[in-house]
């Protein structure tokens, strides 16, 4: 239950953070909060905490692959 409360509080923070208008910083702030929320959902709702480690490792590997794609594409676009 507290997991749900935490997720709601984080949602309120994201929405209000946007109203404050932090310009360029906002993208990173919003993605950072979204990542915290996603981690909470994965660890508690999706029971990663109670599963064998191998699934967590696979998930992290998937995210590493995805982040690598993003970084490589941005490097490509930035130096054209």
């Amino acid at each position, binding site marked *: 239950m507290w997991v749900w409360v935490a997720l709601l509080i984080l949602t309120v923070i994201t929405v209000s953070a946007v109203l404050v208008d932090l310009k360029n910083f906002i993208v990173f702030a919003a993605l950072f909060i*979204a990542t915290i929320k996603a981690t909470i*959902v994965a660890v508690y709702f999706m029971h990663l905490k109670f599963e064998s480690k191998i699934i967590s490792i696979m998930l992290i590997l998937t995210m590493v692959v995805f982040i690598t794609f993003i970084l490589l594409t941005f490097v490509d676009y930035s130096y054209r």
Partner: protein
Amino acid sequence: MTLHRDDEASKMGMWIFLFTELLLFGGLFLVYSIYRHKNPDPFAHAGSELDVFIGTINTIALITSSLTVALSITAIQKNKPKLAIGFLWLTIVFALVFMVNKYFEWGAKFEHGLFPGQEHFMSIDKGEQLFFFLYFFMTGLHGLHVVVGSILLGFVIMRIRQKRVTHDNFVFHENGGLYWHLVDLIWIYLFPLFYLIK
């Protein structure tokens, strides 16, 4: 003789499928971030046309539905099938709330002529066009996942009724739940990227 069962392998299989889903949406997020990087102002302007209020309501609906799915799994583990079915119905109700909101939201966009191909759409800035292409495609694909997820949860309810999902055999229920949480996870990123960042 009982049938051989490997719950851990079943769940791992489900997770591997979820990874392919993550990378499917990941590719779209990549397209979004590159185009946002190239057209910062049109994206910000187009983003401000979305309704933050409806978006927030939908975020709360999905987060709460994620909670009810998790609660229904706990209920089946404790051998309370009726309670589990109740929580699953509640989840489907939240999914309906989400889709009804989406209907009104998309309906308003159609009225404003912002759907790709409409007259007004053809006259707006190229960057804003890109934003609405991505908006309709990504929220549309996500909405499709919401529908599929609800149907899957309907099957879970059916199997609990038939006693094929029980307190000592609930891996099907868990996998249905995992799919539902994935739908929530994707929305957690879609919401700030489309509605909030200006």
